């Protein structure tokens, strides 16, 4: 069992989930707040990683963060090295790849908050931040859990983007899924099986949390 890869995968998934929730919350609130063309364009862009092959995303990230682009050169100037093949680069790639898994549940959660509650709160003197903090956030907390768990599970299982932008550097960018690939390449099927079982268990527990929680919420709503 590749424990360094397990530790790195968990660290990557936790950090990606945390950062992505921080980034996705205002983005989802903006998307859910209206029907303008700009918002629909943003929604479509956010959903792109769902349909694009991970290698396409990984390729563009690799190129975009490298010395061939102005952004890449700026990053290199600031950090002293490129983001590709580093752990921070992996986090950035994971954030892009898992973006729809964080944004879409939040958009659905925010949009499901009864519009009349928001309107009443506004007439009663509450500003946008108060309404968001005291009405929208508590009423969409299940969506936060769904977004967090799906992002975590999706990051744990990613392969194509990780391989493209991170390569396969032990202790730095080698995640569990890359480790399985290596073990299969070495014809070490027993080790690959053990590693794969870890991934199955992690993903199953994550999904179980979502479904248990959503079942409990439905029961509470019914009375």
């Amino acid at each position: 069992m590749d424990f360094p890869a397990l530790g790195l995968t968990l660290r990557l998934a936790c950090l990606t989930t945390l950062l992505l929730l921080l980034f996705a919350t205002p983005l989802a609130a903006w998307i859910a707040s209206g029907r303008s063309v700009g918002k629909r364009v943003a929604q479509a862009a956010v959903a792109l990683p769902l349909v694009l092959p991970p290698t396409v995303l990984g390729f563009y990230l690799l190129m975009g963060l490298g010395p061939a682009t102005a952004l890449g050169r700026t990053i290199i100037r600031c950090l002293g090295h490129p983001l590709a093949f580093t752990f921070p680069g992996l986090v950035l790639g994971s954030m892009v790849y898992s973006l729809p898994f964080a944004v879409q549940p939040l958009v659905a959660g925010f949009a499901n908050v009864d519009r009349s509650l928001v309107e009443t709160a506004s007439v009663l003197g509450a500003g946008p931040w108060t309404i968001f903090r005291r009405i929208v956030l508590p009423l969409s907390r299940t969506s936060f859990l769904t977004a967090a768990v799906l992002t975590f599970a999706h990051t744990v299982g990613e392969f194509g983007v990780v391989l493209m932008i991170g390569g396969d550097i032990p202790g730095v960018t080698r995640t569990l899924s890359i480790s399985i690939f290596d073990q299969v390449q070495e014809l070490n099927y027993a080790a690959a099986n053990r590693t794969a079982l870890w991934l199955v268990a992690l993903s199953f527990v994550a999904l179980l949390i979502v479904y248990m929680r959503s079942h409990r919420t439905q029961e509470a709503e019914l009375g």
Partner: protein
Amino acid sequence: MAERAASQNTPHHRLAVHQQLGPLRLDVDITFSAPWALIFGPSGSGKSSLLRAACGLLDRNGVEFARHDTGGQWLSMSTSATRRRSLSYAPQNSTLFPHLTISENVAFPSQSPRNESNHKPLVEEVLELFEVKSYADRLPRELSGGERQRVNLARAFAVPDAKLMLLDEPFSGVDRAMRDALLPRMQEWLLLHRIPVISVSHDVDEALLLGAEVVVLASGSVVSQGPAMEVLSEERVRMLKALGYTEERP
């Protein structure tokens, strides 16, 4: 100024709406001067839409909403943000915040940044006024429809420094005995705090009981406006006949 108007029957607010709302064309220009004005009309006549227009919740094109200020001038509120209109509001379907307890719901208006000072006594006062203090720690879903409606009203009464109260079918779901007990208490409280009210109803009984200035609305236009006893005299006679009374034997 809304305070002075409420006590002296000088105009305090003006609402003009010229707008197409689905199949309904709203064409009204109403000046409110009574401490309690009641917009009366059948379902679908546009009553609730008028309150929403005053709140700034409708498309603002074709809506003019103005308040008579302390200097005797009309101050246009048409472009003001909803939350800055100093309104209190109880919508028709009680929109209590489902995750907050009854006391948290009622305290909500006094906890927004606009109202930072401590308004706990006001919250306590209205909880008692509407006889909902015993439910203070419960969630809305644990209350009956009538109880929820009273909390809905209590929350509207707990808006600090409100300049106008808007009540949409305020006694919907409240039993008549409770309504008859609440009405004089509400009127007394509003007079004391000098807050004018615009309410909406299709209940003749309620309009007569309030003794309010009545604006009769039909198909989006004002049909008549005046004291309830005058404007609703026909409905009153019809109601008395239905109850088996004649005009001479009330």
